[in-house]
């Protein structure tokens, strides 16, 4: 233990692209104040110095894809007062959860010349499937200001205030003309958790669900509607099976649609 009285922050990485950790470093205007308020005790992407645990807050990026990682996340949980998962990989299994519908041994043979060198689990799963998680931050990548809000709330001892409405609602607030209604473009906005600022429709394309399902989404109804307006069923299945495709609501909807004859 050090004599430093600041709360200790640890940042861990599992299977991921590093983009959500980078979101923390992208808090350029706030970073130096943040590191004044907390002690960065473990953050390998940013620092070689490691302060031993236990830690007050553990931020966890990435999904669980190896048996070693199953053990590692349990050890991290034991060492952390609050465990917060950051991003689509940690909260839903991420894009690499596409393996969950396929034969991972075939994947290994496809990518690697010597499959025997590779050890991996058959599934990519969210952190919450392995240990208790205190707070989940959605997004692929996370919104850095949401990360700041959660850390500030924890430091001040209040509940984080993050909106829970849909991307669709955010478009209305932004004044973006609905691309599904006006142009027939497939969009997951009505069932996707807000947080990105509804950027995809504002850039003239459909939401691809990277913040995951909102609370109580009706993904089946949206899927059926998209097929009705002429979006090929296969495209709707794949749209649901994206960066948060293994989240319960999106998974159930894509599997149900797949069972329906086209």
């Amino acid at each position, binding site marked *: 233990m050090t004599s430093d009285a600041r709360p200790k922050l640890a940042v861990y990485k599992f299977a991921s692209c590093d983009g959500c950790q*980078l979101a923390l470093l992208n808090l350029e205007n706030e970073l130096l104040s943040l590191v004044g308020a907390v002690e960065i005790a473990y953050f390998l992407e940013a620092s070689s110095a490691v302060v031993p645990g236990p830690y007050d807050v553990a931020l966890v990026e990435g999904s669980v894809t190896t048996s070693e990682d199953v053990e590692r996340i349990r050890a991290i949980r034991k060492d952390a007062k609050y465990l917060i998962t950051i991003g689509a990989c940690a909260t839903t299994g991420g894009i690499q959860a596409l393996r969950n519908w396929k034969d991972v041994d075939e994947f290994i043979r496809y*990518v690697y010349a010597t499959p025997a060198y*590779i050890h*991996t689990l058959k599934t990519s799963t969210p952190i919450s499937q392995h240990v208790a998680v205190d707070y989940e931050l959605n997004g692929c990548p996370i919104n850095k200001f949401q990360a700041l809000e959660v850390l500030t709330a924890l430091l001040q001892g209040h509940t984080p205030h993050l909106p829970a409405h849909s991307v669709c609602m955010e478009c209305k607030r932004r004044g973006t003309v609905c691309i599904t209604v006006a142009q027939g473009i497939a969009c997951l906005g009505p069932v996707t958790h807000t947080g990105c600022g509804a950027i995809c429709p504002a*850039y003239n394309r459909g939401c691809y669900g990277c913040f995951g399902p909102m609370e109580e989404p009706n993904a089946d109804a949206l899927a059926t509607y998209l097929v009705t307006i002429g979006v090929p069923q296969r495209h709707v299945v794949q749209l649901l099976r994206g960066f948060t495709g293994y989240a319960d609501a999106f998974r159930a909807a894509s599997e149900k649609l797949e069972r329906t004859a086209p």
Partner: protein
Amino acid sequence: MNQNAESSGALPLRTVKVDYLSRVEGEGGLYVRAEGNQVREVKLNIFEPPRFFEAFLRGRYLQEVPDITARICGICPVAYQMSSVHALEAALGVKINPAIRTLRRLLYCGEWIESHALHIYLLQLPDFLGYDSAIAMAADYPKEVELALRLKKIGNDLLDVLGGRATHPVSVCVGGFYKAPRRKDLQKLIPDLEWGLEASIATVRLVAGLKFPDFTPDYEFVSVAHPAEYPMNEYRIVSSRGVDVAPADFESAFLEEHVEHSTALHSRRAGTTTSYFVGPLARVNLNREKLMPRAKEAALACGITWPSRNPFQGVVARAIEMVHAYEEALAIINAYEEPAKSREDFKLRAGEGSAATEAPRGVLYHRYRINDQGLVEFAKIVPPTAQNYARMEDDLRQYLPGVLDRTEPEIARACENLVRNYDPCISCSTHFLKLKLDRE
């Protein structure tokens, strides 16, 4: 060197082990086995878990590919978007218009700026100045760290305007952009970009004045090259030893091998099976005549003789490229007119296409085969860090004998500093670093 040590085992076994390399993107370690001053074995252990992008891309619709491959790397998503759209456009036979081509260069400028500023100041400068992190460095060098964060932020702001957000921007599609930026939104960035250009030139002076270890291996440098401009998006792949191939012939010149200690594939030259070097140092060495005027001036005035074979001077090459990226971004924005059409229409057809573009860390090669429904049938991705691994191991073999008389923590640190010259991105290449030194 004690010739008997190996057979008698009289000398104690020593190992240097860096369990987790820090200030790199992704996870890996380093293992070194040494006998006296002879290095017996060097292995970069890449234990970043595989995510199988090439496997699950099969069956996906081509327009999803730039969004999906962006997720290979949170530091350089634009590079993945660029290589994938160019490869898919080659497969479709789509020609993009000059306005889209220029906007793609502008997007790449944004990524080079944020990635280079991050690497120069936050990941590498602490090595030269003897700190564990930029955060620790900030106590003694507050002005430099603040300047670094602003330099980086301007790159991110540019990505934000062009792509909606800095990490995994959403505007890139096969054919062009879902939406072209508004002239007024880009114009607002000009004062910051002008500041950034001057701050980058100051950065070149700062890093060129650092003390570089005397280490100059005989490298083969490889980069994309274009007859009229500094390499980013296209043309041919060239080397300092005479390689000059179209992207379609990349795999005839460069091979990938799978080694036991790594979930990353290692690239080598076809034929000679020797290692090669990609990244900013390779680009500046091979293309410095194509740098923008002030970047060229900064390269000539900084006191380093080009071409440079000292990997530690890669930090200077990176700073020169940051000048270039700021300068080119300003030139593009000053001349920018909103295009009538932000994307080319195309007809689906079966085909195969390859592309190589310059990610911040070096050549990024993609090849796809698609069917007549626009679904991916085959995908191959060769990231820059995978191309540099074999070269990093060769560097370590040459560098270690000169530092083996130091203490183990010092050896570990020296090795990490050497490896960080390459700005390795392990997330990208996993398909990276713990140091373990065995001394016999």
